[in-house]
């Protein structure tokens, strides 16, 4: 029985052989993407993760604490009036949305990629006909679903209690969706290229900690970026971090006019292009180095 099946597959495989020498495997081309395998991986990772719901709920809780603190700081500061144009209810709306956006864009896999490289896990991933990026993506998708099971009800309860002030226009609502998607992509690939430094240096994750600190400061967590003073405001505008978290929140809460939204998208797309280029260069040279020195 086995021989028959083999014979059949042998025929279909014949074609691939001649092409063998021209192609370089570490480049991700369309034929190399293997969507079916990627989707299956996502499904499995999710199955594995729902086994540990409570652990991920605790993680999610940990991540929502800092924005929650700033929610109370700023809404208390605003009191009955406004701070920098924000009323108490507007601060509440801003931070509640920020909690959700921060959760949706946070790439925890950035922290694990380095470990996979350091502890030799990359070997098994490189042996499969599937780009290792899918492993990170599958954890991302699985994680988002599990975190949302926690974050959405908690935020809803907070909203009922804290009475946010939010008027979403159609334009802002529509712009929010791509802004959020791009924010996720930017944050994911930015962290991923930093994590790939593990191919060269053993403690590359120090840079990830620095990234988290910069996001805390410049991406709208410690304060909405509109409220940042002079040079910090400039830094927030030009560096990529605001476009990973703060920008979509500003879009949805109506802080930006049409020009502001378009400028934001331009920065987001520009930084995403730069990040993807960095990621692809790092990936290619990293794998090349890995296969030279051995895992």
């Amino acid at each position, binding site marked *: 029985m086995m021989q028959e099946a083999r014979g059949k597959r042998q025929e279909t495989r014949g074609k691939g052989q001649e092409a063998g*020498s021209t192609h370089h495997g570490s480049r991700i081309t369309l034929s190399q993407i293997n969507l079916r395998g990627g989707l299956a991986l996502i*499904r499995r990772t999710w199955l*594995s993760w729902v086994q540990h719901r409570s652990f991920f709920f605790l993680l999610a809780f940990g991540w929502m604490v800092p924005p929650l603190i700033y929610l109370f700081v700023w809404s208390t500061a605003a009191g009955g009036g406004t701070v920098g144009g924000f009323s108490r209810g507007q601060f509440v709306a801003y931070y509640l949305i920020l909690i959700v956006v921060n959760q949706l864009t946070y790439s925890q896999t950035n922290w694990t990629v380095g470990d996979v490289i350091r502890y030799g896990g990359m070997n098994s991933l490189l042996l499969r006909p599937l780009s290792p990026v899918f492993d990170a993506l599958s954890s991302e998708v699985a994680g988002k679903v599990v975190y949302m099971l926690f974050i959405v009800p908690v935020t809803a309860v907070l909203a009922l209690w804290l009475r946010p002030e939010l008027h979403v226009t159609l334009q802002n609502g529509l712009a929010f969706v791509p802004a959020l998607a791009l924010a996720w992509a930017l944050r994911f690939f930015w962290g991923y290229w930093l994590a790939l430094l593990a191919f060269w240096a053993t403690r590359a994750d120090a840079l990830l900690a620095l990234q988290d600190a910069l996001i805390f400061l410049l991406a709208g967590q410690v304060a909405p970026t509109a409220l940042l003073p002079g040079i910090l405001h400039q830094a927030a505008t030009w560096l990529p971090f605001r476009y990973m978290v703060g920008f979509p929140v500003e879009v949805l809460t109506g802080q930006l006019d049409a020009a502001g939204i378009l400028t934001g998208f331009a920065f987001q797309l520009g930084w995403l292009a730069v990040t993807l280029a960095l990621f692809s260069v790092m990936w290619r040279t990293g794998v090349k180095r890995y296969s030279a020195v051995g895992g």
Partner: protein
Amino acid sequence: MTASQIVVKNLCKTYRVPEREAGVGAALKSLMHRVYRDVEAVRDVSFEIARGEFVGFIGPNGAGKTTTLKVLSGLLHPTAGEVRVLGFTPWERRHDYLRRISMVLGNKSQMLWDIPPLDSFNVLGDIYHVPPAEFKRTLDELVALLDMEELLTKPVRNFSLGERMKCELVAGLLHRPDVLFLDEPTLGLDVSMQARLRRFFAEYNRRSGVTVILTSHYMADVTALCPRVILIHHGQLLYDGALQGLAEKLAPFKLIRLALSGANGQAALPPEADVVEQENGHLTLRVPRATTPTITAHLLNTLPVVDLSVEDPPIEAVIDQIYQEGKVEV
């Protein structure tokens, strides 16, 4: 395409390793000025393997076996030399190539701990694009061969080492690879599980015609499974041929076992014969292969021999000597 599925010509792999002495001072110094040392892991190794062969890769730790396997499976690119497997250059890691090989590592796991193996197997079926009907047929066959029906739906974290290895094998074979690299598949398993897996490997190789390269430190694996062995030591190929020939070629001595009626015959032994063992009237001698007949005749003539047998040295002893000295001395 040649008749051989695996062609390795003059393969060399040199690692550049940063070198520094212990201590803080040395660490700081190495930040400024790194000193590298070249380590030749594989030196000028050539061999060819035909479809369906079962080849044992042997050699001591650090001999270059794993490096060679990693080059063949595409994880490493060589410093020099030519390698073709199934017509592909492995380190290009084309998906067409990766779909046709499999590497099973005794110390690495593909399984997720929290979910039953069946879920992991299904994912692999999708990653390797195995048609559903073929997937089911292969899975049933492997599960039957390994007798592991009851494991399919339990979480992997509760498995013993042997049960996990069975899962690894199914995971590695679901896509029916043409070439299989087995790196220490029996590592840490108990004797009966080792024997079980050996029977499985032999049966699977016979049924499917898969080409297998096996590395193992258990000589029993190699003697049971591999008609052909490739011996690597210090990165160089020392021997390529039948396992039996290894002893003949690399161990130029034989063992003579004697039972004597008188207790003491030592005085009459010829100088070429080394006494390996001595125990109430039983003697084991190690003698040069070439002079074995004359020594045997001499012994029969001069000693009160009750029983005498001439044997090749046990393969473990030959291997041990090669591993320690890089060659076999008389």
